[in-house]
């Protein structure tokens, strides 16, 4: 196999695996005569997805919107708190245990509380997305700051730099790859957060669509919703990965950009 062939095969691999998976699923459904209500055939899911494309798209956009809002809040909040935690040992000592404790709470548990406070609608979904995707950002940014090479700090100190200058000239640039690295994880979590909220109790979004379709025993639509979430998740992940490479070329030593 030549070099270009093997590279082409590598790019094709995920699609091949997916195709094999879908075909196997289709054949299993037909072969074992699985009822549609239990596991619909993928071809059936596709057909439903195309037939009901407008509804699916509307609900998807609702979910996308709440997710993005929660995600953006998480970036801002996570960055600020991460910088504070990473830059000051006191803030670190005070907040880190609390953050760990907070992160250990299953986020599904807070959705009903949010409902009581805020009612149904977009707000609980935004907050759930925020709360769940916030943590990895804080931890990563704080780690980036806390692991500055002492030599780098010495260079700044020998020039008589203030703490603020060390933070802006070394700390923040140093933390950027960590921030952008965490965004890939955070965006996936944000989707999980908003869909959980929509599923537990909501009147909008793809989670709600799946829930109500499930209640009508409309398995193909439920599965179409599932696929839609996966596709949105992958797209947003790709966007974050692209932003990461753009913004932190130096961290990859130029390798990945070629």
């Amino acid at each position, binding site marked *: 196999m030549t070099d270009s062939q093997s590279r082409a095969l590598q790019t094709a691999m995920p699609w091949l695996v997916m195709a094999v998976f879908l075909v196997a699923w289709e054949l299993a459904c037909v072969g074992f005569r699985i009822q549609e209500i239990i596991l619909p055939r993928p071809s059936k899911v596709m057909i439903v997805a195309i037939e009901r494309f407008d509804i699916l798209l509307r609900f998807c956009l609702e979910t996308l919107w709440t997710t993005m809002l929660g995600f953006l809040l998480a970036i801002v909040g996570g960055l600020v708190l991460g910088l504070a935690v990473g830059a000051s040992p006191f803030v670190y000592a005070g907040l880190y245990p609390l953050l760990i404790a907070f992160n250990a709470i299953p986020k599904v548990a807070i959705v009903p509380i949010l409902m009581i406070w805020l009612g149904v609608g977009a707000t609980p979904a935004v907050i759930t997305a925020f709360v769940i995707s916030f943590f990895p950002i804080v931890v990563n940014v704080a780690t980036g700051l806390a692991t500055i090479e002492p*030599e780098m700090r010495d260079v700044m100190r020998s020039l008589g730099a203030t703490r603020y200058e060390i933070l802006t000239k070394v700390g923040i640039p140093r933390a950027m790859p960590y921030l952008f690295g965490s965004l890939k994880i955070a965006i996936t979590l944000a989707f999980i957060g908003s869909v959980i909220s929509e599923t537990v109790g909501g009147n909008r979004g793809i989670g709600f669509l799946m829930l109500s379709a499930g209640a009508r025993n409309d398995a193909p639509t439920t599965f179409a919703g599932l696929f839609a979430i996966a596709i949105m998740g992958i797209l947003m992940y790709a966007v974050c990965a692209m932003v990461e490479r753009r913004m932190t070329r130096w*961290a990859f030593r130029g390798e990945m950009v070629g």
Partner: protein
Amino acid sequence: MTTTAAAPDPLVELRAVSLAYGRGDGATLALADATMSIRKGEFIAVVGPSGCGKSTLMKLVTGLLPATSGEVIVHGETVVRPIKGVGMAFQNPTLMPWRTTLDNVLLPLEVVEPHKRQFRARKAEYAAKAKALLASVGLGDFAEKYPWQLSGGMQQRSNLCRALIHEPEIMMLDEPFGALDAFTREELWGVMQALWLERKFTAVLVTHDLREAVYLADTIYVMSRRPGRVVLKRAIDLPRPRTLASTFDPAFVDIVHELRDRIHQEYA
């Protein structure tokens, strides 16, 4: 001109300075009882076995490390925090990978007064100066490259430029030519000497190359094995400017041999 034990008006003075890393049983005594005094405008070199505390000494003088005992005095004041007006070329080039070589060299001007305040207004002028400095060490074409696109020796040369750019009155050079081939190194001795003759900064050079020490320094301190103590202080009163040819003079060669013999005793 020879230096006497106590120079009349020392700029940097070390009085029985020692430094131990760590505390209690696990402590490593890196430097013991170092006493030296450096005049303003003097070029001193420190030589000694690896691990004897030379880099530690540099960090003590600049106030990056607090002395365990003894006193470091610069400008008549005891050093308790990092002092201003030093340029330090660390042993490992600590260039910032997110900055181009040019921006790395410009860093001190963004931080040190009075350049800091004028940085925006005089950016173009500063950049031109940095480029000229890079060109003088043979890196004229690499200003826009990132440090990780440079070789080890090129990084070291950029590191040297960063220490020089803000024209500090005290220069701390920790094996600045260590990763270079013999020819580039000898060329940079000339560059260094010319700079020093022009600006007369006070310099402390750590090196393992005795010829380099004799070429550049007014005074050489030889240190013992860890924990390092000063075992020999040798004034070099060869005429300046010294040239590569003068490194083959009998007087020059004799001094190198004398130093080599003294250091050799450390391994006996």
